[in-house]
């Protein structure tokens, strides 16, 4: 069975069916959406079971020629990095659909249909082995997200959606030019037209070409991430989108940029990556500090989490760009961690917003009294978000900082500021809403208490956090080979010593 292709086909079929479901039959729409996402989870688990973690190679490849004269093909597969992102995507979308189903907006079938279409885009993106196909899915995911913002967003939705689309498209189209240029240079070297990443990987690009092409790709990735200063669309889009969409964008769409960097940017253009190492690392560092400061001063909880995401992604980019084995593995782990944590944080924001009618944290207070169970969940998520030792994010951040320190001690020092700020802003959010005198709500905020429907979404996320915190080895080991292969060429160019302590051993030592 072409299991990896099914990952894309199942949600696509479900999305088409959803679009045809009569508008008033909300129950049917819910059933189809849940069945679609649930089935996709099942497929992703099959892919995981069939996955060979001992090999770093791209595997379970489904290859069908699409446009042979141009060398474009339908080529899907997974490697140690994408397998976890695929799993994260399928699980988070299922939870997202569950959350959306409980408070389905008007024209709910279309809402769910677009949600599933964006899942198609993300899953295709994470499994593409062909550059053009990667681009196709890269763009494919944009449209449903944009329409979700336009149709169900806040008051300023038109502007938010358009800013988001135009920002992203400028980067994407430049990336398209870079993709074509890459393939044309590769064609002269290989003797045939191809866009397959694994074929292009061995092609030596000249220094200038490598730098320019890397820059072309990275611009698109940086906008999607977003990396400072390309984050202009973020406050609008995150602020105006329906919160389920915001959560999925922050948790998954941002990973598309990181994934591109790790899967295409660094392995294909090691020379260029090495040339631009310092500039990009500086942008990431600015992002860490700037994002943290914005999060600290943010007015609404939603923006706070959104800006914190800017800082966390700065960490991840830094971890990849220093070409250190430990840092890169930490970055991969942190991609998963951040996805889970940010999704959980937005879920809590959603519950608070719904129960109190506001996301403005200065108008709330003392909710722990009326909603003790929520307070517990909130505290766990807060601890994970600020990477308390023992939490899942701690392992990832520790790896990243350790690896960065080995290569560029000064970067690690600046990045540490982000860790400190994280405690400041996350605790601010927790304290101002949960502790202190009861404010802004009636009935001591019982309306916000964790109910069964919310628990179905939140508890699995918290369980995943514990799972990663207790057994990070499972994740690191399965992705280690692929990560090593991704950064190895860049390590050679940067002259890094290739023998380093095994991070998995370090992980065992650091764990509680």
């Amino acid at each position, binding site marked *: 069975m072409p299991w990896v292709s099914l990952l894309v086909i199942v949600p696509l079929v479900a999305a088409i069916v959803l679009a045809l479901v009569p508008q008033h039959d909300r129950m049917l729409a819910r059933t189809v959406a849940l069945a679609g996402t649930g089935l996709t989870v099942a497929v992703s688990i099959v892919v995981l079971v069939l996955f060979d973690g001992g090999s770093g190679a791209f595997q379970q490849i489904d290859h069908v020629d*699409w446009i042979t004269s141009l060398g474009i093909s339908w080529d899907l597969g997974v490697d140690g990095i994408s397998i976890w992102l695929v799993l994260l995507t399928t699980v988070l979308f299922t939870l997202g659909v569950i959350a959306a189903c409980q408070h389905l907006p008007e024209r709910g079938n279309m809402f769910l249909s677009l949600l599933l279409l964006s899942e198609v885009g993300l899953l295709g993106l994470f499994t593409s082995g062909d550059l053009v196909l990667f681009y*196709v899915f890269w763009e*494919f995911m944009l449209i449903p997200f944009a329409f979700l913002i336009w149709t169900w967003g806040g008051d300023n939705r038109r502007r938010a959606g358009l800013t988001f689309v135009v920002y992203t498209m400028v980067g994407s189209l430049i990336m398209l*030019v870079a993709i*074509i*240029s890459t393939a044309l240079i590769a064609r002269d070297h290989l003797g045939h037209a191809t866009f397959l990443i694994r074929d292009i990987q061995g092609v030596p690009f000249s220094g200038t070409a490598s730098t320019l092409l890397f820059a072309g790709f990275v611009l698109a990735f940086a906008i999607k991430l977003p990396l400072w200063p390309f984050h202009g669309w973020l406050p609008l889009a995150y602020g105006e989108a329906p919160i389920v969409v915001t959560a999925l964008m922050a948790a998954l769409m941002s990973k598309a940029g990181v994934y591109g960097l790790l899967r295409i940017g660094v392995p294909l253009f090691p020379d260029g990556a090495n040339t631009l190492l310092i500039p990009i690392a500086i942008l990431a560092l600015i992002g860490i500090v700037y994002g943290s400061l914005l999060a600290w001063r943010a007015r609404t909880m939603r923006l706070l989490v959104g800006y914190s995401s800017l800082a966390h992604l700065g960490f991840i980019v830094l971890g990849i760009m220093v070409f250190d084995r430990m840092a890169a593995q930490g970055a991969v782990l942190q991609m998963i961690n951040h996805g889970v944590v940010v999704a959980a944080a937005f879920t809590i924001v959603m519950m608070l917003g719904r129960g109190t009618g506001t996301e403005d944290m200065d108008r709330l207070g003392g909710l722990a009294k009326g909603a003790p169970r929520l307070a517990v969940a909130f505290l766990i998520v807060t601890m994970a978000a600020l990477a308390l030792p023992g939490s899942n994010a701690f392992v990832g951040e520790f790896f990243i900082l350790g690896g960065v320190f080995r290569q560029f001690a000064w970067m690690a020092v600046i990045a540490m500021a982000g860790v400190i700020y994280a405690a400041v802003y996350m605790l601010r959010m927790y304290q101002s809403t949960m502790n202190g005198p009861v404010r802004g709500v009636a009935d001591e905020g019982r309306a916000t208490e964790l109910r069964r429907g919310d628990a179905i979404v939140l508890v699995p996320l918290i369980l995943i956090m514990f799972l990663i915190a207790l057994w990070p080895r499972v994740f690191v080991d399965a992705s280690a080979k692929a990560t090593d292969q991704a950064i190895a060429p860049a390590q050679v160019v940067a002259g890094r010593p290739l023998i380093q302590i095994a991070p998995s051993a370090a992980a065992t030592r650091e764990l509680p």
Partner: protein
Amino acid sequence: MNVVVGIPLYVMSAAALLAIVSGAFTLPRDLRRLPEWIGLLGVGISLLTLIAMWDRPQSGFEGEIRLTQMSMLMSGIILVATLATIALSWGEPAGAGRRGEYIGLILAAATGMMLTVTAGDLIVMFIGIELLSVSLYILCAIEVTRERSLESGLKYLMTGAIGTAILIYGFALLYGMTGSTSLNVIGERLAEAGPLTSQPLLVAAMALVAVALGFKASAVPFHMWTPDVYEGAPTPITTFMSTGTKAAAMGAFLLVFTGAAQGAIADWRVLIGAISAASMVVGNIGALRQTSVKRMLAWSSVAQAGYLLMGVAVGTAFGAEALVYYLIAYLAMTLVAFAIVILREREVEDGDQIEAFTGYGRRRPWAGVVMTLAMLSLAGFPPLAGFIGKFMLFSAAIDSDMLWLAIVGALASAVSLVYYLRVSIVMWSPAPVRNVPERTLRVPRPVAAVAVTGGVAIIALAIWAQPVIDLCRDAGASLLP
């Protein structure tokens, strides 16, 4: 003398004459659609003969008419555009009472377009361009009682006349320098002559021809007439101009530049590249501020001419291949967009205004879906036909060391999103309470058929791109010796 080569043209001219003659009689009610049926039949037969002759490229009349794969494919595109125009005119108020003339002139214009792209000689090409232009002057103004229609026809006539003068001047210079009007001979002479930079007169000739053809293709800086003429003309005629005329102009560009003037490529490629880049930038920026979908599509057609001209600017067979593929995709997208505008225009007053489309997708989901597809495809979103076309054009540009042109194209596309997407957003927004009277319309089947076929084609052309690209590849290869 090979007379077989002209069969597709004879059929079209005969159909044009028959349709005009049929208009002279007062037809009984059962036969009131006779001109339309004559037109459909003529186009159908002409298409069939082209298909039958596909594997046997040939030339006739001392090489003045050349049916190469390129000219056959271009003729095919023009015929499909004609077919769609007749379908879109079903129930159109324009030309009511003068259906014979209306359809006959469309067929005559189509004949001119086909003559332009099958020409093996400058004179024949000129006749073709004149035939299509004169027919279209009248068609634009055919709603004689509507001021905008008259204005449109007059404006087109004025600018068109200047274009004609420039074209004939350019051809004359070309003839003077090479001593022949035959495209083949001109090609040989230019190849012998070496780089043309030393002969300013030939450069001037190329520039004048580019200007004049640019008029017809509505490329910058000769695009000023486009928005007014497009807006004023009856919408099916606008559709015809933006598909058929554009195809004919592009065919002529390919024949004269990529084909005949291949030897002098170094001299004209920057010129055409500049026209292309300017069209993309000006067209897309011009479209941003429009409130009428028709005007917006007019500016967009300026921009699209720019994308298409990338395929000419590179001067390679691959460039021509990419151009033709994009032209086919462009045909599908444009037909859909105008079909939906035509539908809306018949339902409400000022139906071409963007506000008139508010919530239209919710009322007629199929129309909303195909229009959204057309807009996304025009903007170049994958995996739609417009994307594959742009991909090929960008590839052709980069492959011929015109990276700058591809980058201009990419950035211009990003700008174009704003206005293309605005239409799609508006279509799916909640409809406001309006006091405008709506005619509830039974959608004419031919119009719906064009819209839906176009919508399907936008997806199908991308998913099964390879067979179409193979056709385009043959066409591109046939252009160069």
